[in-house]
């Protein structure tokens, strides 16, 4: 590699040491050969820097995001379901159980208070028909349908991938 060229590029790129920089600057000022070479190289340098970047097609980012969405859709349910959702479901179930037990115990206490000697069991049919229980069953059915749908979609997706 040409020593002058190498030193001049280092000078232009700013990768030389402070001392070298001073020495090269002096050479450019005093020596016509160095000055001409420096001017030529600097012209090339600024021309390359000013070159515009190539543009991809208009639909490029859309296509990338389509790919990303397809990737997300193909993720197994196990990894795509948030931990917060699982925690929420667990919390709801615990809360429902607590509510049912509380209602049963409160009812039992009332019956026990009215007739101390007679052990009346709580009216189970009344409890099971309460709106809380209905909501609980409704939620369970919806969850079951959602999981079944996700399972079938995944199964169909796997079949398609295999056929490709």
């Amino acid at each position, binding site marked *: 590699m040409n020593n002058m060229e*190498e030193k001049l590029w280092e000078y232009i790129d700013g990768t030389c040491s402070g001392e070298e920089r001073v020495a090269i600057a002096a050479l450019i000022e005093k020596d016509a050969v160095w000055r001409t070479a420096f001017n030529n190289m600097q012209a*090339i340098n600024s021309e390359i820097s000013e*070159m515009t970047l*190539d543009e991809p097609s208009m639909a490029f*980012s859309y296509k990338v*995001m389509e790919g990303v969405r397809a990737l997300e859709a193909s993720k197994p349910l196990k990894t795509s379901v948030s931990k917060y959702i699982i925690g929420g479901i667990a919390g709801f179930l615990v809360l429902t159980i607590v509510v049912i037990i509380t209602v049963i115990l409160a009812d039992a206490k009332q019956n026990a208070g009215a007739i101390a000697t007679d052990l009346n069991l709580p009216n189970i049919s009344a409890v099971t028909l309460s709106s809380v229980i209905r909501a609980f069953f409704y939620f369970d059915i919806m969850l079951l349908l959602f999981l079944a749908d996700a399972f079938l979609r995944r199964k169909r997706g796997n079949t398609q991938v295999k056929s490709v």
Partner: protein
Amino acid sequence: MQSKLTDIELIQRTLKGDQRAYALLVKTYQRYVFTLALRFTKSREDAEEVAQDSFIKVYKALSSFKQESKFSTWLYTVVYTTAMTSLRKRNTNTVALDDEDNFIQVENSTSVADVNSAENRSRSFYLNQAISQLSADDAAVLTLFYHAEQSLEEIALIMGIETNGVKIKLFRARRRLKETLERNLKHEVKELI
């Protein structure tokens, strides 16, 4: 969403499931990624494919980004390896990446219709033409250094070589570019005469 969000903030949002944040990252870097891919593939269609693959690979591996380097450096590393793999797959005759004689002429978008005469062609056109005639390696080094604003150390990381090796590659690439430019311009001057 504000446009002032940093790459790291956009990555964090993407990891939380906000795909719009990733779309912003794609928009920010698509021209750099596409240009870099084009330096390898020399064809716009193939470059788009490489660029798309790279962005999807980066999305898949986003959670593994350790922030030890700039996001752009990491992204260009993926583009570089994807482009190299694509080039190797396509070139069944195994063309050396630094072989200047084995270039393929790029489909230059500015080379049609309105720029038929040599007088109308700008200096930028000749530079683009000369870069497209360089080897993939030379063109990639120039693109990373001048357009993608990567330091010599970062380019070394992207290309998996020593910093000194990048320095030498850059010197050679610039010299070859100058020679190619001079050769092309000499040819155009003859054409005019």
